[in-house]
């Protein structure tokens, strides 16, 4: 197994050559020339600079369509009509599977029919020139957002193509996104991505990297998400990344969400090297949405309000059409503006909520315990520690489809709607922390007059889409009518 060491320049070159041979567009990548290209970009397209110098939470949607011209129109629309501060380019699922051939077929079909043959922008197929055409046509900074376990070619092409921000990481784009990818192998692949970002950084082109905080998006206990963020941050820092945006997905309890955002920032700053600029990103509710645009706007607004109190550097917005499928550009822009309105109205007033410090302390204790366990599993090496901790379940993610994780942790909300842990599996938390979770859930079970069971978890999974926060036995009736 590889260790947590910076890839040597030779290794970087060697891998670069290999992966660029995976698809014809790889050939056009030329690092020196790409650095010069980045230097030619105006300041307001430099992702890290724009994000790190912002004075209020910046908004960014998700968006990706197959054709270049459509992607340009979509992003320009989101920037102008949605007032997005930062833009995305979401990559299609074939590319995520490194199936560039299938993506090519679908892209050509799309070119002919204009149809929805791909659920994102196949950046590898568009190649360096296609990416640059996008970067040049859109008047704002753009990030690559994907979900790709092996994103080496995607990174090589998009970095050379002028993108200065890249989402994902070896844990966050493996555990929630795949079944069979080996975690150690994925870490190795991301060492290349991070080292490449590091190489640009050393030449003065600070590529921003953003581990994917929401993980499975479904009732993820904050300490688990934050632990993964710090681990990925550390791995990236080793490879020379200096601009890191750590993420967290809203759970819907304002106190817990604000506490988590603060814990994320404070532990991020504590654990990551001093020369890394740490920013944070808050994802509006990533679980199942209500099948109704009006109700969805309420969920989105609660996210905006939480962001106004928690003050992350960036907010990833949802659209009111989240439930049904990829949103129209109008709905996507609507989600941005709903968020902007409530954030701005709330930012201009002081809203100090009680109980945040206590919750933050609990989250930090848990996170430290998990990080310590990873450390202990590693015998001095972080990569080994991560792989082993997931193997044993000392570190785990609820609803993880990956065979590299136990997926034994089951979350449920307590009586106040905060996400607690019902089944720990082997999660490396001390008995007294476990007792806190158990007590909170016992209290809820009592309120509801039922046993703690998977039924609660299932009810909680549906609660927000059913118009509630907590999956109370009665709340369930609503969906049936």
């Amino acid at each position, binding site marked *: 197994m590889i260790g947590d060491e910076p890839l040597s320049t030779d290794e970087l070159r060697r891998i670069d050559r290999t992966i660029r041979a995976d698809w014809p567009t790889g050939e056009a990548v030329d690092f020196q020339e790409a650095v010069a290209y980045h230097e030619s970009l105006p300041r307001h397209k430099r992702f890290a600079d724009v994000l790190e110098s912002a004075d209020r939470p910046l908004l960014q949607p998700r968006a990706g369509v197959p054709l270049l011209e459509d992607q340009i129109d979509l992003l320009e629309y989101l920037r102008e009509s949605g007032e997005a501060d930062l833009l995305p380019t979401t990559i299609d*699922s074939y590319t995520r599977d490194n199936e560039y051939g299938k993506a090519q077929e679908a892209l050509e079909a799309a070119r002919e029919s204009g149809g929805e043959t*791909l659920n994102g922008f196949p950046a590898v197929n568009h190649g360096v020139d296609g990416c640059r055409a996008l970067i040049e046509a859109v008047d704002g900074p753009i990030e690559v957002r994907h979900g790709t376990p092996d994103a080496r070619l995607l990174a090589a092409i998009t970095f050379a193509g002028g993108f200065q921000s890249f989402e994902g990481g070896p844990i966050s784009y493996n555990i929630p*996104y795949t079944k069979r990818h080996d975690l150690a192998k994925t870490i190795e692949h991301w060492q290349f991505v991070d080292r490449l970002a590091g190489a640009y950084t050393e030449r003065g082109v600070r590529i921003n990297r953003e581990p994917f905080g929401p993980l499975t998006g*479904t009732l993820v206990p904050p300490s688990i998400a934050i632990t993964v963020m710090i681990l990925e941050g550390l791995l990236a820092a080793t490879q020379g990344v200096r601009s890191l945006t750590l993420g967290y997905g809203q759970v819907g309890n304002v106190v817990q969400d604000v506490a988590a955002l603060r814990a994320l920032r404070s532990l991020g700053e504590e654990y990551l090297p001093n020369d890394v600029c740490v920013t944070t990103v808050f994802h509006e509710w990533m679980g*199942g949405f209500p099948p109704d645009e009006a109700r969805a706007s309420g969920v989105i607004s609660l996210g905006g309000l939480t962001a106004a109190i928690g003050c992350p550097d960036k907010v990833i917005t949802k659209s009111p059409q989240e439930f049904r499928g990829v*949103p129209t550009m109008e709905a996507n822009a609507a989600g941005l503006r709903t968020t902007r309105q409530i954030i701005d109205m709330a930012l201009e007033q002081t809203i100090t909520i009680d109980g945040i410090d206590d919750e933050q302390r609990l989250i930090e204790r848990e996170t430290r315990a998990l990080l310590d366990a990873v450390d202990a599993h590693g015998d001095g090496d972080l990569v080994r520690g991560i792989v082993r901790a997931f193997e044993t379940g000392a570190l785990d993610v609820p609803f993880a*489809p990956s065979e590299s994780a136990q997926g034994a942790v089951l979350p449920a909300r307590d009586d106040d709607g905060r996400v607690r842990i019902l089944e720990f599996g082997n999660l490396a938390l001390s008995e007294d922390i476990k007792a806190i979770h158990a007590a909170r859930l016992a209290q809820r079970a009592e309120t509801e007059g039922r046993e703690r069971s998977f039924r609660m978890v*299932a009810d909680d999974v549906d609660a927000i889409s059913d118009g509630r926060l907590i999956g109370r036995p009665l709340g369930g009736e609503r969906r049936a009518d």
Partner: protein
Amino acid sequence: MVLHTMSRTVVLGVIGSDAHVVGITILEQAFRQAGLTVINLGVQSSQTEFAEAATQHDADAVLVSSLYGHAEQDCQGFHETLEAHGVDALTYIGGNLAVGQNDFEETRRTFQELGFDRVFDAETTPEDAIAALERDLRISTTANERATVTT
């Protein structure tokens, strides 16, 4: 009318490279509670995996889930694969079956033409799915009853 106790076997999984696991996790638990035997293939399962599991466990129904918008591509030839493995089971598909904000009736037709016995949208609850299975897996099912539970 008394319902038959459900001691039937269903194969459940998410097809293609789709990783959305929450839906099938909820369905699996609910199906078990309802007395069904469930073979859960998990996410990112191939057509062949579905077919082999159905043969091996002599499944009464094969339930395909897809959320990420590539269901149509992923299900091309699915029923031919089943047939090639000698599977003669009820087939359902459910989830977010199209990319974007499509009209569901159109989507339903697409998947019915691909050979699925029933097509479910993302508003389907486990109870809806169980109700459909209960009717379809009875010895005699009238076409009429079948129509009424189609969601």
